[in-house]
């Protein structure tokens, strides 16, 4: 349910970038998302169509790249894939690990439609 709030924050960021660059519209939004971010990709996608209506981001493609859950073991130092509910080392089984991927919630790039002319005056 908090996906709507997260989505509104995303759209605020994106439309802020778009208007600062005098873009006519947002074509594409790319986001990296991990299972440990607590945000469900399909709910974020659903929220987007509602929250983007009437903004520069309306009609944009929201591409969500799901990141794998990976941990680095502090004992054997290997990086292994893990389950969100079980973040133990896949190699030696030790529980003392650090998440290196899977808690992402990152706006990576935005594609904008602009006037089509190289410009150095923003």
């Amino acid at each position: 349910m908090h996906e709507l709030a997260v989505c509104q924050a995303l759209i605020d960021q994106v439309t802020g970038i778009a208007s600062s660059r005098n873009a006519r519209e947002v074509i594409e939004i790319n986001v990296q998302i991990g299972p440990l971010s607590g945000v469900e990709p399909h709910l974020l996608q659903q929220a987007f169509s509602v929250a983007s209506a009437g903004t520069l981001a309306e009609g944009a493609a929201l591409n969500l790249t799901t990141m794998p859950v990976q941990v680095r073991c502090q004992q054997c130092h290997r990086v292994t894939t893990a389950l969100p509910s079980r973040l133990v080392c896949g190699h030696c089984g030790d529980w003392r690990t650090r998440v290196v991927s899977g808690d992402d919630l990152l706006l990576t790039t935005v594609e904008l439609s602009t006037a089509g002319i190289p410009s150095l005056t923003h």
Partner: protein
Amino acid sequence: MCNTCGCNVTHGNAHLLAPGAKLYRTDDGHESVSVLRHLLHENDRTAAHNRAHFDRHGVLAVNLMSSPGAGKTALLEATIDAIGRELSIAVIEGDLETENDAERIRRRGVHAIQITTGSACHLDAHMVHDALHQLDLSQFDIVFIENVGNLVCPAGFDLGQHHNVVLLSATEGDDKPAKYPVMFRAADLVLLSKCDLLPVLGDFRPEQARLHLQELASTAPVFEVSARSGAGLGAWVDWLLAGTAGLEHRPGRTDAAAPEPQNPAP
């Protein structure tokens, strides 16, 4: 300068227009902007601002999270009874509706601010920031933020707290950490609440809850507590006192041992 034909592109600035660069635009009028920013960037900025406020006044900020009914308010009442004379406490209460929890806190003579979130299932840093405008932080040692009862949404939002404390009550399953890994990973301390009911219930095994926490690579301490019987509250209080001692208090502060009586309502 001329933006029509591109004659303003020089050796000095051409790199800015390269693919992937800050001002890159394709011939068909598309511009690709690299952002690499957290989706909740604005929330995190406000949270950092809140934290700076707490730090400036040497106030320990504790965010209490749990499912509804795990005993957050009862824990606060017991905590006020235990250390309310030594330390000056304020509570920010988050609920979808009603001021019931804030009223319970105020009946203990402690300043409580209610945030009614309406349909929002969590507190965010902006809501807490607004609440802080109603608090004179120079008067307090600890601010508890009682989040909306929910094991999912509150975990995603930094409020500017120093510590997240997550309650898991004996009436819930001991596998809750495995079911809600995002929440329990965020915990700096886990309190197994209502532990006076453990002998009656029989099916909640604290060691099992600890094992599930360990499988989340959690290093958070786990205390068994009961707000009703008072069991385990000593360890919780010591943990809080260590937290306040770790903060640099406002110079010249002398009234911590004898707090002014708080107004019952804001």
